[in-house]
């Protein structure tokens, strides 16, 4: 489904990604791990066209993803969440989720201002779907509340709901359980497993929380200093000497 090959990204003198390559099959859940600064978020930014690749190719469902303009990523079936939350703080939780479904609507300025019947129908349909998602993720009680001021764990779920509202086929999660307590992490892992089944999405997740990665992912890719240093099942990667060295330092 997703095939990254020899991807290199440089910012000035820094090489954030250095010839990274891996692939993701449909229906898989792949964990992307590595110490801070390994290039994980840069990789996500490349996949959502927020930064340009110096060289290398990314193929998504057989097409060249690097040729897709940033605003068309969502329509291509890719959704993401952000490391430090990318919610719209002054909008209500429901409206945040509805923005996630933006590319699935068609109302323009004129039609919307006149509230044409087709705009009302579309609005009712998207609203019903959003409310279904809010129910599914136990967010119905805060639907009318502005995103700003809600607990962090709730906001993480709002972001997941917003990503799912776009009906993605590929879901990119950037540190979804970062900042949650262990009970919340367990809960989020359960939700994610269920959602994966229900919405039939392929997931790539960047995460530092090893328990979460080992427990939920089918396969793990480990990056360090912009290079891929290991790939395999969670168990294999955990025992990989290169990975242990990257995280713990080399034995003297």
């Amino acid at each position, binding site marked *: 489904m997703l095939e990254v090959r020899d991807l290199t990204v440089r910012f000035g003198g820094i090489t954030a990604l250095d010839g990274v390559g891996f692939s993701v099959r449909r229906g898989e859940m792949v964990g992307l791990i590595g110490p801070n600064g390994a290039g994980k978020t840069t990789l996500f930014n490349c996949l*959502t066209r927020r930064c340009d690749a110096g060289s290398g190719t990314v193929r998504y469902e057989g097409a060249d993803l690097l040729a897709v303009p940033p605003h068309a990523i969502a329509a291509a079936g890719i959704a993401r969440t952000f490391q430090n939350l990318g919610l719209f703080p*002054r909008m209500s939780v429901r409206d945040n989720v509805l923005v996630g479904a933006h590319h699935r609507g068609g109302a323009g300025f004129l039609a919307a*201002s006149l509230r044409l019947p087709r705009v009302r129908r579309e609005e009712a349909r998207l609203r019903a779907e959003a409310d279904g998602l809010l129910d599914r993720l136990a967010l119905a009680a805060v639907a009318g509340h502005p995103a700003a001021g809600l607990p962090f764990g709730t906001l993480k779920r709002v972001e997941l709901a917003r990503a799912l509202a776009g009906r993605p086929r590929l879901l990119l999660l950037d540190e979804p359980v970062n900042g949650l307590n262990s009970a919340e992490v367990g809960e989020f892992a359960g939700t994610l497993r269920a959602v994966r089944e229900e919405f039939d999405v392929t997931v790539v997740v960047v995460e530092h929380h090893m328990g979460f990665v080992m427990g939920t992912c089918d396969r793990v890719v480990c990056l360090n200093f912009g290079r891929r240093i290991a790939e395999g099942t969670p168990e294999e990667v955990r025992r990989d000497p290169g990975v242990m060295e990257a995280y713990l330092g080399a034995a003297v």
Partner: protein
Amino acid sequence: MSGPAETAGEPMTAEKSETVGKPVAAGPAAGRRGALVRAVTAHRGRLAVAALLAVACYLPFQLVPFHVFQLTMVLVYAVALLGLNLLVGHAGQISLGHGAFFAVGAYGTAIMIDRWDAPHLATLPVAAAAAFALGLAFGLPAVRLHGLYLALVTLAIAVFLVPLLKRFESVTGGSMGLTLGKPAPPAWTGLAEDQWLYFLALAVAVVTFLLARGLLRSRVGRALHAVRDDEAAAEVMGVRLSFHKTLAFAWSAMFAGAAGSVYTWVIGFVSPDSFSVTLSITLLAGIVVGGLGSLAGPLLGGLFVMFVPSISQDVNEAAPGVVFGLLIIAVMYVAPAGLAGLAARLARSTMRILRKG
């Protein structure tokens, strides 16, 4: 005005817990009042608008013509501020040049009437369309510029407009401006001229408010809010930034142009000095004071723009600017979310008192 349906849930539960807590002796009277309070709470937005409209239709028959004229101007400014609010309050862009779009509407209408004897009402769509086109053209830099840079470019529009209007004397009448007849009230209405102008302005205001409300409650409105709150995240959600920013600019200019057109009907005179940079800045001050991003903001801002300068003139004839400035500071100090935010806060505490009482 954020939709009564969303807020209806919370007061109802509060009501329920209260009746549970009270002894049963309160009786049916309290139950009836509870039902009334519930109904009022659930539809308070609609009720407020209906009451406001009723008052707005009643007022011109009670006031002297000068006061009717003042209220007409409030409506004209409210329409202009509605446009500015769309851009500044909802899409998060800035414009220090909205007076220019207002002027384009005003002059467009004036020239059409002056040169071709166009019927007054027919000039509005054309003037609004002209402002829309100009807004689209000036919206393009907004795609690339942010914050202060955008402020500077839009300020430039307002600055070069006045000399431009003076330069093309044959069309614009130069510094002397153009004097025009006002639209005559049709006989069947039985209205005086000032009342007829007032109702025309009211009709334009109601239509533009409905258009803006439809826009903001839709996918487009949410996209604008998303652009305002977080551009990067909005783009990942599939919102085309350039498209939404440019069109927000154009729609905003269109509303300002429509307001300018009504301005010409009402005043019957346009001159370059009515549309100096001060107008643009006063409009921006008006919407910030009225309440950014709220539907009531433009109306409150219109009241502010219309009445505060004349009030400050009364307070101290030598320095109206100082009083005007101090009043802005005072309002922002008391109500950081503008007058609309203050009104919402007052409405909430009134509701609380009503529920308790």
